[in-house]
């Protein structure tokens, strides 16, 4: 018989770690609330009959966020056999609040007291036996991180499911109990006994979500109003107070603190969130992350990968005297020649696949270092502090500090970044976040930044951090402008944020997180990018010359199909300084995957074996921009456009999912991203050209006009008064 176990707990209680330990899965773990936004399922390692469902972390079962709605719908309709309520033992009092709610579903509950090791280290004692007697449910001490107590937990849980002993819901004060009893009497008689209390409480709390589920309108206003006047409080406050009063009634007996004074975590926080030091530290941390991963360590690694592994080769040991290891292209080339490969296939493999896919794979070391540092930032708990530090800033733009979490996640990949927007409560702020998250350069755009930083600016340190701060600026500017338009007007986004304890992450978890994301990148290079490079190679290698379909090769590449295609709209990018067919076609191949921007450039500029494709790229920029002096300006405009314009199809799919289909919100998002990218890049190129050459042209006038329009939209007063914010009611769970 299969047993289905629902994992429920507060955000950041170690639920995902527990799920990974139990199932042998490698879900992604972070130390900030809201990592799990959808439910995931997995089987117990070595036992297919035990199935776990990992629900999003929630503080309560109120209907105010999509995570809460996903979780409660699963508990009422999914019929799990038993609930494991994972409780952060170092934060017992608030975690038990959810426990009191879970005991009302008529499903057996087992409490897993997690982080017992931290509790002991901090000098607390928790009497789990007394807690179990108090709650009348089994309580098991575990450490999900170290895997302690998990066998006991599984055995206890399976037994609880088999015995089917329902927990006894918390008893409230008698006046409240009599009101709830009256509501229970009004519920449909077909409703099973164990669900009646849950719905009675929800109706008492005026929970519209639950009222809708019941179908028939049940009027209990009289009972509620009478009880509210008796308690002199609103009905939902009465219930919340009663739950916490119940917990207070025994918490001192089961939980003792033997050491007083600031915890280690609080001491760290006195520096990291210090009024004066917090902002400078934040800037240094972010700069360091991108500086290390892109400009220094990452560059050494990538240079080795690009020039060595995917280049000519490298010396093992001392230069000239050590062992010469040939690069992959050389090895493949020799092998192909040895088997007598036909010419066109040799070209396809060498100039198409090896050049294109190799140009992308060369960035794997940089991406791995970036992912490692991001995993460290997330796992230690600093990310929650960043929302605390930046909330004031983001709120001015109608967003909340929580917007920063999708942004940082988005620097790894835009898809989870867009999905992380679900932790934002206000609908308009959430839409705004979905629209702007991909302004942050994701790992696939990183090769573009690296190309510009090294090939154009000689590897100066500031290009990479600048690209990221530019992404932040784009989000803020978009936020201000759009917040003043009618569809995005609304009350300020709420900010209620737990600041979790700092934790020292385990190296193995960081490496696992790094590897799983880097592997996804490598897999993409081997599939979709491989396919795209083959198509691009054919389109750039073949064409029509003097009325004949033929192999055009390097000399006649301007007559290739790709050239015809790119030339059809290259003029659009002329005001941006890169109006040539090569660059124009990367805008389109980049939509399939942003890595294609670099792989396409490597193919279309890689025809001449005597010239590095990067140099050929710069030469063509000089031609399209008008002079050699304008290369850096045009290259910077090219990078800006590629970073800000519509994301890849996968991320567009995520936008569609969050906006609820191919509706006006979806098209508004894509339109805004492309339009904003175009305008900003045009301003950069034209103003840059004006500064560099001193020539005031028609383009300068257009750029000044755009700049004036942007500034006006930024600083104009919001015309109509803010409409009352709609509380997000129903969210369709994608799981």
């Amino acid at each position, binding site marked *: 018989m299969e047993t289905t176990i629902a994992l429920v707990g507060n955000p950041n209680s170690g639920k995902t770690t527990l799920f990974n330990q139990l199932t042998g899965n490698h879900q992604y773990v972070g130390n900030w609330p809201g990592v799990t936004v959808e439910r995931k399922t997995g089987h117990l390692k070595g036992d297919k009959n035990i199935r776990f469902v990992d629900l999003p972390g929630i503080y309560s079962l*109120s209907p105010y966020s999509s995570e809460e709605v996903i979780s409660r719908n699963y508990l009422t309709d999914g019929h799990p056999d038993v609930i494991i309520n994972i409780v952060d033992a170092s934060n017992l*009092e608030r975690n038990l609040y959810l426990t009191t709610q879970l005991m009302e579903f008529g499903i057996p509950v087992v409490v897993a007291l997690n982080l017992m090791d931290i509790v002991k280290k901090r000098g607390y004692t928790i009497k789990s036996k007394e807690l179990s007697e108090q709650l009348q449910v089994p309580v098991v001490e575990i450490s999900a991180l170290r895997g302690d107590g998990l066998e006991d937990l599984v055995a206890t849980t399976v037994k609880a499911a088999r015995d089917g002993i329902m927990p006894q819901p918390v008893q409230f004060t008698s006046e409240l109990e009599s009101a709830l009893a009256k509501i229970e009497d009004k519920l449909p008689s077909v409703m099973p006994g164990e669900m009646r209390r849950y719905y009675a409480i929800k109706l008492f709390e005026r929970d519209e979500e639950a009222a809708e589920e019941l179908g028939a309108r049940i009027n209990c206003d009289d009972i509620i109003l009478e009880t509210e006047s008796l308690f002199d409080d609103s009905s939902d406050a009465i219930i919340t107070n009663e739950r*916490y009063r119940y917990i207070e009634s025994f918490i001192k007996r089961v939980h003792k603190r033997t050491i007083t004074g600031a915890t280690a975590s609080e001491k760290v926080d006195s520096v990291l*969130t210090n009024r004066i030091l917090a902002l400078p530290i934040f800037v240094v941390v972010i700069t360091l992350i991108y500086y290390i991963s892109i400009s220094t360590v990452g560059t050494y690694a990538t240079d080795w990968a690009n020039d060595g592994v995917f280049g000519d080769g490298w010396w093992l040991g001392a230069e000239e005297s050590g062992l010469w290891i040939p690069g992959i292209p050389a090895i493949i080339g020799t092998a192909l020649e040895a088997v007598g490969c036909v010419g066109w296939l040799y070209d396809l493999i060498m100039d198409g696949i090896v050049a294109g896919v190799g140009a992308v794979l060369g960035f794997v070391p940089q991406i791995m270092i970036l992912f490692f540092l991001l995993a460290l930032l997330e796992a230690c708990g600093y990310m929650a502090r960043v929302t*605390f*530090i930046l909330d*004031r800033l983001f709120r001015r733009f109608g967003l909340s*500090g929580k917007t920063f979490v999708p942004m940082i996640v988005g620097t790894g990949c835009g898809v989870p970044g867009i999905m992380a927007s679900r932790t934002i409560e206000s609908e308009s702020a959430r839409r705004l976040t979905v629209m702007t998250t991909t302004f942050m350069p994701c790992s696939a755009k990183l090769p573009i930044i690296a190309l510009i930083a090294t090939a154009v600016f000689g590897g100066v340190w500031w290009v990479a951090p600048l690209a990221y701060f530019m992404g932040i600026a784009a989000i803020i500017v978009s936020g201000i402008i759009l917040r003043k338009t009618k569809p995005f007007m609304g009350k300020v986004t*709420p*900010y209620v944020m737990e600041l979790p304890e700092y934790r020292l992450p385990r190296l193995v978890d960081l490496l696992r997180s790094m590897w799983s994301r880097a592997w996804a990148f490598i897999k993409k290079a081997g599939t979709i990018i491989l396919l795209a490079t083959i198509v691009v190679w054919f389109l750039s290698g073949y064409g029509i010359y003097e009325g004949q379909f033929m192999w055009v090769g390097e000399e006649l590449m301007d007559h290739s199909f790709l050239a015809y295609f790119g030339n059809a709209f290259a003029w659009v990018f002329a005001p941006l300084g890169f109006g040539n067919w090569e660059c124009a076609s990367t805008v389109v191949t980049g939509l399939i995957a942003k890595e294609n921007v670099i792989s396409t450039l490597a193919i279309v500029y890689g025809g001449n074996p005597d010239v590095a494709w990067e140099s050929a790229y710069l030469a063509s920029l000089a031609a399209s921009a008008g002079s050699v002096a304008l290369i850096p300006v045009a290259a910077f405009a090219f990078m800006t456009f590629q970073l800000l314009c519509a994301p890849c199809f996968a991320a567009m799919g995520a936008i569609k999912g969050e906006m609820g289909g191919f509706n006006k919100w979806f098209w508004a998002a894509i339109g805004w991203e492309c339009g904003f990218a175009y305008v900003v890049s045009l301003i950069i190129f034209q103003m840059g050209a004006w500064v560099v050459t001193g020539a005031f042209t028609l383009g300068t006038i257009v750029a000044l006009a755009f700049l004036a329009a942007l500034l006006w939209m930024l600083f104009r007063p919001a015309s109509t008064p803010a409409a009352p914010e709609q509380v997000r009611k129903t969210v369709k769970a994608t799981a």
Partner: protein
Amino acid sequence: MTLSDVKPGKSYTVLKLRDSGATRRRIMDMGITKGARITVDKVAPLGDPVDLTVRGYHLSLRKEDLGKIEVAAV
């Protein structure tokens, strides 16, 4: 007196929560209920939000929402 008037480093008891709606419910869910003890720890660098200790953990809220929480000094 509401929590927005108070000084860091002091402890207070919650008397009542004003206003209604989703944010209020979320604040209550997080443990700020009638009778709860709150310590104001610090203010963020830009003057908002505020870091509090309630029920043994750290929670941050904006001053605007703190203004809805009526408290008495302990």
